[in-house]
């Protein structure tokens, strides 16, 4: 038979045990909640950091572009206009002999037409008018032709799919990506040949891009990633595409990206 004090002791022990258990459970719950919370915070911090970095890159890219436009305007437009102005003053001067005037006029006409061509090129580079009027395919063909005409590079462009004539944001982004890729191939890769193919497989559209340039170690991409490449990356993200890059030193550069037309 158990006596009263024994029963009292057992009950007390059970109560203490249950209380302790409760406390442990509560502490555990609070701790795990905190853990989840801090992980979420960490995630958010990472996201914010990424967004800040992207924003900085966008601002930097914008400044680089502005500098490029300023340089183009200075080198290709204002210096030619100054030359035209100097020539006109020369023509106006009574001391200029008539025999020379013919030469000066021809020279001025020549500089003037070069200025017109330069301003066309600058405007074209800023926003290609063909894109809006004739669609992505014609715009890309013209872009490639412009590059091929410089004789610096030979670009092959092939379409195994058809883009709609109506221009969408995706078309504009694809145009910019190709423009940037070609610029990178020539400037950094010193490529002399570039291959661009657009194809469609199982309703996924892909662009396959490759060049014969000096290439780089693609494992080191994060370290060497320049503004141009972040730009490309952002644009692919913007059109919900994915990309794949292979490059080795002295083995050229290969780049695929997908998009949904």
């Amino acid at each position, binding site marked *: 038979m158990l006596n009263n004090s024994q029963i009292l002791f057992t009950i007390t022990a059970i109560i203490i045990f249950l209380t302790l258990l409760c406390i442990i459970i509560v502490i555990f719950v609070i701790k795990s909640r905190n853990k989840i919370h801090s992980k979420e915070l960490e995630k958010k911090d990472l996201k914010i950091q990424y967004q800040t970095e992207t924003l900085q890159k966008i601002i930097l890219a914008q400044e680089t572009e502005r500098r490029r436009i300023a340089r183009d305007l*200075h080198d290709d437009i*204002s*210096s*030619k*206009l*100054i*030359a035209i*102005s*100097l*020539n006109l*003053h*020369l023509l106006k*001067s009574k*001391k*200029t002999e008539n025999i020379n005037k013919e030469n*000066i006029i021809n020279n001025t006409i020549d*500089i003037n037409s070069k200025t017109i061509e330069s301003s066309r090129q600058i405007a074209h580079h800023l926003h290609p008018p063909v894109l809006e009027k004739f669609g992505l395919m014609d715009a890309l063909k013209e872009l490639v032709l412009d590059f091929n005409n410089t004789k610096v590079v030979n670009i092959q462009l092939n379409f195994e799919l058809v883009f709609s004539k109506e221009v969408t944001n995706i078309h504009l982004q694809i145009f910019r990506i190709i423009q940037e890729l070609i610029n990178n191939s020539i400037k950094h890769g010193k490529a002399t040949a570039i291959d661009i193919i657009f194809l469609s497989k199982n309703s996924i559209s892909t662009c396959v891009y490759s060049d014969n340039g000096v290439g780089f170690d693609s494992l080191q991409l994060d370290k060497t990633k320049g503004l141009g490449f972040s730009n490309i990356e952002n644009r692919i993200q913007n059109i919900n595409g994915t990309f794949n890059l292979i490059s080795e030193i002295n083995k050229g550069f290969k780049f695929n990206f997908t998009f949904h037309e």
Partner: protein
Amino acid sequence: MNKVTIVLVEDEFLIREGIKALINLESYFEVIEEFSDGQAFVDFINNSQKLPDIVLMDIKMPNLNGIETTKLLMTQYPELKIIALSNYNSKTFIANMLEVGAVGYLPKSTTPTEIFTTINKVLENGFYYDETIISFVYNNNKVNKSFFDNDYLSSREKEVLTLICKQKSATEIGETLHISPRTVDGHRNNLLLKTESKNVVGLVVFAIKNNLFFPSLEI
């Protein structure tokens, strides 16, 4: 009369050709050499027997820009008369050239009259700047407290200095102060020595920085 020898230092071919053609309108001017960057011009000067009378030099150039080139040449050839060619009519650029020793400036989109006036004034007075540029240098530097002992220059020297800053020739200064042009030259040489200036532009910059001359207030 000997021709005025001129050297053009400008990286853009079209502009160089245009300015050369305008200079050649005046029969007593002669463009003897052309360079497209500062370094090539420095090499030329280091190897030449006789300095050109006038140099027209672009501010923005590859390799060695106009400001660097002028600074470099002024240490060895303070008597060289460099006129800055400026693409942008930016006062900062021009004032910078003035402070390193350029004796004048011309916008690239210049006119024949402007070229002739500037070159002739430089030949006559040693420098030529319009008042807006001089007052810009003044405004840029007026925060500096004068470190200069006012008694160091005689009152006559201060008078001559002010008139030099007003771009008066030795003859004009002589007439104003009732002294001979040769005395004026003597004062000018003393000023150069006392202020440790390399050329007349150095004197002007000195006068502005030490509040001995207040431009634009008198215009």
